[in-house]
């Protein structure tokens, strides 16, 4: 009945076929190429840091051609700092994507939603494709989209915890109510959890620690790739019945109808 359209992820006018956004932190540059390849990733996040004169390895040399670099603003504690880091990232010459991360707290690394809205507004106006990391709050998600965010990236669990979809109910609300891709970010610890988030209707998954802490990183990247694709297919196919019915009424409710 419905035409089968090509299933693509659209972010700020760019089209992607992969729904796996790969982090590049916490593991050696030598592994990046294999990780990106086996993850089938088209977007890789990276950070902006003070350059070091002793190290001449450039991460860009390890990232395959055609992959979109998504610089994050990690290290920013305020909206102004996030904007400053985004400007530096753009000057590094890898496009207009930016993932906003603003943390005022170094213990749990929870995002500052309010500052994130302000940074999103500023950067979206400047033409950035803004992907804000946030704590899943519906009102904030609406504000982010109104401020120009190209997607919303709610956390599933505390960063690096590998605990999975702790905020599941709230992420589901965002998926149901927000007219922008919802990309689940942080806390996804296993392919099964990534698959579940995709079945719920998440547009993509961002993962890093789960891979960096795996025994065989490229193999885990490949497992995530398959799980994300499977979850996406299940979502598009429409999940089958869940038996959570209450007891049937003893008298028919519609017995009063006449014609």
């Amino acid at each position: 009945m419905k035409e089968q359209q090509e299933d693509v992820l659209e972010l700020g006018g760019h089209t992607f076929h992969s729904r796996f956004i790969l982090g590049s932190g916490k593991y050696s540059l030598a592994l990046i190429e294999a990780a990106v390849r086996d993850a089938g990733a088209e977007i890789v996040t990276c950070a902006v840091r003070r350059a070091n004169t002793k190290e001449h390895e450039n991460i860009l040399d390890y990232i395959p051609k055609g992959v979109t670099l998504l610089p994050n603003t990690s290290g920013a504690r305020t909206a102004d700092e996030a904007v400053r880091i985004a400007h530096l990232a753009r000057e590094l010459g890898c496009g207009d994507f930016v993932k906003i991360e603003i943390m005022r707290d170094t213990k749990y690394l929870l995002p500052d939603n309010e500052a994130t809205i302000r940074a999103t507004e500023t950067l979206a106006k400047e033409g950035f494709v803004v992907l804000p990391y946030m704590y899943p709050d519906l009102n904030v998600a609406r504000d982010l989209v109104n401020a120009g965010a190209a997607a919303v990236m709610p956390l599933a669990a505390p960063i690096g915890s590998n605990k999975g979809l702790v905020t599941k109910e709230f992420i589901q609300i965002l998926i149901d109510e927000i007219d922008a891709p919802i990309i689940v970010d942080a806390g996804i610890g296993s392919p099964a959890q990534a698959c579940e988030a995709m079945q719920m209707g998440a547009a993509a998954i961002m993962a890093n620690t789960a891979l960096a802490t795996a025994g065989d990183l490229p193999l885990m990247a490949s497992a995530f790739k398959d799980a994300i694709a499977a979850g996406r297919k299940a979502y598009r196919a429409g999940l089958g019945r869940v038996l959570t019915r209450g007891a049937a009424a003893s008298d028919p409710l519609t017995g009063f109808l006449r014609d």
Partner: protein
Amino acid sequence: MVKVNGELVEEAGKSVAAYLAEAGYDSRAVAVEYNEVILPKADYEKTILVDEDVVEIVCFMGGGR
């Protein structure tokens, strides 16, 4: 004295381009913030470091959550 990436160095009088080359930075892989304003690559040659300048030199590195 000029502050580069948080450290004081005796580099006043040099151009940014010269400093980057001498210190061993790959100027294609970095971005430079000069007194809190981003310095376009085209201006590296003509920008001369003076005392009390604050310079940040950044690059991409692995990152994610």
